[in-house]
């Protein structure tokens, strides 16, 4: 009985020691990061902290990340590569979505799986129904190569995507407070102001 107690005591103090060393490790890491940030980092005045983008995914300011790894159908990689080659980087349907900062397809595991990553503005979930009625063909051409893809019009499609989504461990956005629309609007304003200034100067 007493030896048992001793054992407990022993393991408790081991635990404590573990915890202490662990937090010491974490403390050291924090200190290193802080020093590195102080020495090498800058401050742009933006809030770069992250929150959750919904059930899965991270969000920084207005920009969220979506990372999916999914198995491909037999020959799916070839077809998808061909489609992307034909598009030559120009996915007009994706441009129309209006909230996409970027997206990429990466083939992994000998072309048996695809890694799909995108950065987009705000909420993704409420717009899935819109994709289903506005760009169903594009969605199904791209993702129809994924094993088990239920089709964009299928009510289970949201769950299918969630099932294959992996939340990023880290997420940093350079200008977290600007949406694609903000950037486009700001560009128009700058162009307009410069045009007005050029005209004023010419007169």
């Amino acid at each position: 009985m007493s030896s048992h107690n001793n054992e407990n005591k022993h393991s408790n103090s081991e635990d404590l020691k573990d915890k202490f060393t662990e937090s010491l490790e974490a403390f050291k890491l924090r200190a290193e990061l802080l020093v590195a940030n102080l020495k090498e980092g800058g401050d742009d005045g933006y809030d770069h902290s992250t929150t959750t983008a919904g059930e899965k995914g991270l969000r920084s300011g207005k920009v969220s990340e979506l990372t999916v790894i999914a198995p491909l159908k037999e020959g799916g990689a070839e077809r998808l590569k061909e489609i992307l080659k034909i598009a030559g980087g120009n996915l007009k349907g994706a441009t129309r979505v209006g909230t996409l900062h970027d997206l990429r397809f990466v083939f992994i595991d000998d072309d048996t799986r695809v890694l799909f990553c995108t950065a987009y503005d705000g909420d993704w979930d409420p717009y899935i129904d819109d994709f289903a009625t506005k760009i169903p063909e594009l969605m199904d051409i791209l993702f129809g190569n994924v094993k088990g893809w239920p089709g964009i019009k299928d009510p289970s499609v949201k769950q299918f995507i969630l099932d294959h989504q992996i939340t990023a461990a880290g997420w940093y956005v350079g200008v977290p407070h600007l949406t694609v629309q903000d950037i486009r609007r700001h560009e128009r304003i700058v162009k307009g102001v410069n045009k007005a200034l050029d005209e004023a100067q010419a007169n």
Partner: protein
Amino acid sequence: MSNNNHNKALSGLTDKWQDLKDEFGNRIEDSHFESWLEGIKAEVGDGIEMLSRRARGVFNPNLVTMQLEDIQSIILRERPTPYYGTIIAFKVNEAKVGRQMLAQVLPDVTGSKEWHKDMQATLSIVMTYEGLKALGVPQSSLESFPESFKAGMARRADKLRDFDINDPDNWMAPFGDKGDIHIGAAVIADSKEKWQAKFNELKETIKAHIDYDNPANGDIEILMEHDFGSDDNVKNVFGYHDGISNPEIQGSGIQTPPSHNGKPIAAGEFVLGYEGEAGTIAPMPQPEILGKNGSFMVLRAYNSHVAEFNKFRKDNTDSEEEAELLGAKMWGRWRSGAPLILAPDKDNKALGDDPSRNNDFGYKDDPYGKKCPFGAHIRRMNPRDSKDFILSDVRIHRIVRRSVGFGEVLPPDVTEDDGKQRGLFFIGINAHAMETVEFLQSQWINDGNFMSLGEEKDPMLGLHNVKKNGGDKDSDADKFTVPADPIRKRYHGIETFNTLYGGEYLFIPSLSALKWISELS
């Protein structure tokens, strides 16, 4: 032709004749009817225009593909003008008695078949998820309801952006966690007499189940009784003609006055069990008799701060005329209902009153929002053919609105609150109403990105927080941009002119579903 058949044909013809007589003045796109209609027109003369105005729609029996007799009238039928009514909320303490009550009121619940007939008082019955449970709906059926409906509106506050002053913690009883609303009933009529008669009938029917001395001990408990209505034709408490634009539903047979939206919207967007815009039938509550021909309702109870709205207009403008224009820019319509697109400079009462013209416009010719700002309430809620900055399908975010106001209209020049309660029960109906309203609340009301407006919110329905939270008066979210020549005007410090004090997600069962529930054991 046998005598029997002959009689059948004759009675069919008489029925059609009956239809016509009941709704003369309404345009029917069928050459056979057209000539009859002309005859009636010649007989009644100018009165026709008035009648068609009242009907605010046309019923064409040839276009019906839905089971109108099974669909509650509140889904497909416009509320009358003027209107009088009461909303009652019940709690069911005894499942068996709850079902008995449903069976008793069932004959009075109004279907949609008689849409075009002379407007009678209507009774509508809706229920919450907790209500379905309390009535003893089996577990397998309960599970087949959408997750958002099961959670209830209060628990979807994140999705609805109901924060701060609109937070469910600040709601009034009996909404959300402040009560247990199980069943809602609404009586609406176009005259005080009809409303009172139908309402008294209902009270009489349920009397036996209520313990008036000790309400909580009754088998059925009345949690709330709230009268509403408007003598003043169709004005909301801000003094604006509203409820003008409602979607036309394919297969309902009801043709709305001309609007820009082109072809009718698929039935499945509004009623369960029919094909939606995506061409598929969405999952619905099971068994089919429970789900089909039903729909969902989102009820949101708002207190309207009309004096603050008037004060905001006054403080930000130099003349009464300018203040009126600012108000119109915020709504997108003038007080009469005349849309800014068709009347950009000043109100036009004849236009506002005319249902054949007041909704017949698009935004294509106003690409910079100089007539109607992108941020105006009606442009946000139905962007029609506005350029889409973010890909969205305006057809799947339409909602049937059956909103009703309560309290007196406050005149435009009053800027001091009189302490009286006035506001609006927003009632939105859609086969996936929870999703639709959560979309509208988060994307189109409390954000501006979809119109490339940054964080700007809906000036009338958005959650603004200047004073309440000691917020930044120049906060992006509390501004309102009005494109103009030579430069845009920007107004700062918008307040929450409509604050939420409660709400519920409700199921609108079909008449056969009500019967099915009432017969459970």
